């Protein structure tokens, strides 16, 4: 009986939340499958089953290294972007703590970086949170000014997960090198779109997550430039050159390598897809900002090609996302999580947006499957839903009492 009760959506929904996660590509699943069926061995084992798994792991490491312009031994596989950020910030700060105990980061980082920094503050480290402009962009000069003799690590994200603003990573990388400070870049959100050559970017640590680029969940990587000291954040076996203990998630790692290869190995194909996405994004921006009191958030030009984020005045982001979902459109808001938290987005607040307005945030992120027709339908549906929600918010007659 229960099966018959289950809710089924009659039409296929329009998925515009690729910044949250992406559907794994068929090629990725195909690459992973042998490592779940035949080659299920432990990559650390001496015997043939182990060697088969090891081969998949070694090849995957080479693939990821090639995409980053790095050496295979500079790649540490992790459980995803959050772990990579934790390992980078805590691991590097601890390892360098004899030289100094000061970290420089920004106000708009992902919580994985911000909360890792907060944890280091509890251990007596100092952290400077560099502010951003109204587009969420960091000025490299502000980063330079924040660095002191005691600074050992600078951590700045490549592109913001909420508003899509791209940071001047190369310029910050150059100044960190000049000041002899380690530079960590959270590239989780940018990994599927932007060039990742670690020498061009001049980074020492770079975080990636597979599921943001059409790979599986629960796997990611941290690039650790040769010679960079890290204090491991989890103990056990000697996997990943003693930087990350635990039996390797070989199928996940193989899938991740295939996904990043598909996204990045051919820069021309990547840029063609980026241009297509940017066209869809710009149509969304034009369509939604034509609704009264809907504003674009983030850098207007220098932003991820798939990210269109907005402030919709006079509505709650959570209500808007729920209402769109019921129209078959899957979006997200920066202001609420699934358990109904009312915390406004720290990113929007850092951009100088007031708390009341920040509650009305809406993020639409396109992906490989997104079509122009879906964008047109999304604009129409948003227009009607916003109108309905604003009618509710407008003063209404109260229920009569005697």
């Amino acid at each position, binding site marked *: 009986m229960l099966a018959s009760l289950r809710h089924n959506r009659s039409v296929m929904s329009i998925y515009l939340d690729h910044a949250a996660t992406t559907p794994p590509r068929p090629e990725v699943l195909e690459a992973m499958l042998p490592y779940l069926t035949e080659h299920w061995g432990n990559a650390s084992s001496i015997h043939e089953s182990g060697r088969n798994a090891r081969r998949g792991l070694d090849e995957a490491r080479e693939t990821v290294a090639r995409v980053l312009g790095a050496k295979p031994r500079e790649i540490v596989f992790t459980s995803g972007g959050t772990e990579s950020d934790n390992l980078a910030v805590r691991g590097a700060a601890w390892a360098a703590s004899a030289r100094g105990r000061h970290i420089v980061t920004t106000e708009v980082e992902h919580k994985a970086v911000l909360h890792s920094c907060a944890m280091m503050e509890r251990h007596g480290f100092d952290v400077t949170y560099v502010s951003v402009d109204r587009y969420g962009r960091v000025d490299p000069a502000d980063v330079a000014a924040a660095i002191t003799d005691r600074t050992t690590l600078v951590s700045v994200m490549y592109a913001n997960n909420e508003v899509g603003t791209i940071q001047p990573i190369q310029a910050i990388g150059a100044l960190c090198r000049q000041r002899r400070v380690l530079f960590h870049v959270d590239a989780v959100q940018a990994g599927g779109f932007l060039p990742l050559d670690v020498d061009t970017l001049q980074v020492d640590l770079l975080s990636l997550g597979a599921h943001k680029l059409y790979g599986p969940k629960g796997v990611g990587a941290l690039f650790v430039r040769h010679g960079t000291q890290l204090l491991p954040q989890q103990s056990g076996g000697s996997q990943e050159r003693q930087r990350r203990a635990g039996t390797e998630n070989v199928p996940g790692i193989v899938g991740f390598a295939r996904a990043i290869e598909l996204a990045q190995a051919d820069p021309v194909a990547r840029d063609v897809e980026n241009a297509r996405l940017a066209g869809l994004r710009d149509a969304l921006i034009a369509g939604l900002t034509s609704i009264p009191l809907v504003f674009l958030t983030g850098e207007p030009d220098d932003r991820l090609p798939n990210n269109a984020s907005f402030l919709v005045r006079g509505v709650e982001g959570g209500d*808007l996302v729920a209402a769109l979902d019921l129209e078959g459109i899957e979006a997200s808001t920066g202001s609420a999580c699934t358990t109904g938290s*009312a915390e406004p987005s720290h990113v929007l607040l850092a951009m100088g947006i007031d708390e009341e307005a920040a509650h009305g945030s809406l993020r639409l992120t396109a992906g490989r499957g997104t079509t122009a027709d879906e964008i047109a339908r999304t604009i129409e549906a948003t227009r009607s839903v916003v109108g309905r929600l604003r009618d509710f918010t407008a003063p209404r007659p109260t229920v009569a*009492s005697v």
Partner: protein
Amino acid sequence: MSRIVAAMSGGVDSSVAAALLARDAVEGGDEVIGVWMRLHPDRGEGYEQSRSCCSPDAADDARRVAQIVGIPFFALNLEREFGAKVIDAFADGYLDGATPNPCQACNQYIKFDVLLHRGLAAYGAESVATGHYARVERRDGSYRLLRAADAEKDQTYFLWVLGQDQLAATRFPLGELTKPEVRRIAAELDLPTATKPESQEICFVPAGDYRELLAERRGYAGEPGPIVDVEGTRLGTHSGYAHYTVGQRHGLGVALGEAVYVREVRPASNTVVVGHRDEVAARHFSAEGRRFVAGEPPGERFEGSVRIRHRSPDVACEVTLVGDDRFVVETAEPVWAPAPGQAAVLYDGEQCLGGGRIARS
């Protein structure tokens, strides 16, 4: 086809209400959307264990039920609204020397106002369903609020504030069921909430001690003052008037041989007046802020019955309207401790007519 928002607290009643609607939906009824409201912040372990409706456990249970019965599920954050209209009003009630009625305030301002109106706008719904035990009947173009089939569980005492507009958009799927039947349905559907204990306490005062809340929300620490009898004779010392409520017996520290009860709380002089059992009962009292479900009172003077607290029996009475806002109740037999701030809810047989807040005499 229209949509219904099912308010889900994570308790067994609202779970079954949502399940029944979901079953109807499969048979061609209205589409159902499950909504859980976060009403106050979860404050960690001690609060989590309290079985209050806003613990992470409650959200988990509500979501799990929605998954099992196959309806979409959303969490709605109404902390700000609930804080102002329910929690602050609760604190202010005590500071005013009254006994506040937070469940009624939650129905009036949260469930059947914010949720109802916002639910209709956000989810494109036409009505809101809750797990209350009560019935709505449409007759001659107007809506009547009726007691639940299960007299034990009847919750009209908290719903008398609803008017015609609200009843028109409200569904009570449990109105014809008894609590054992509801539990049986929950068990049949294998809902995780099937054997969940009843919540008795006020959801945002889990330990039942509201003194801390008065200090936190309103900076009221409580200043010691006199406990007196009706003649003004000092009998003892209290810890602050707002810590006492009419009808209260325990915690007075007064030994008079016979049991004494709080008869009146006087904020201005920080005085608590006590009396013996018969001094705390009354045969007439007045109420203010009157409302009638029908929009109109049955008459300037009418007979019916009155209930002055949840789960106490109602008593036959005569009601006389006074001015624009008040009415006076005369009861056929004495009622126990009419407490200012509590609701006096009026009935005509099965029908809930409306009511008012008991006023200071």
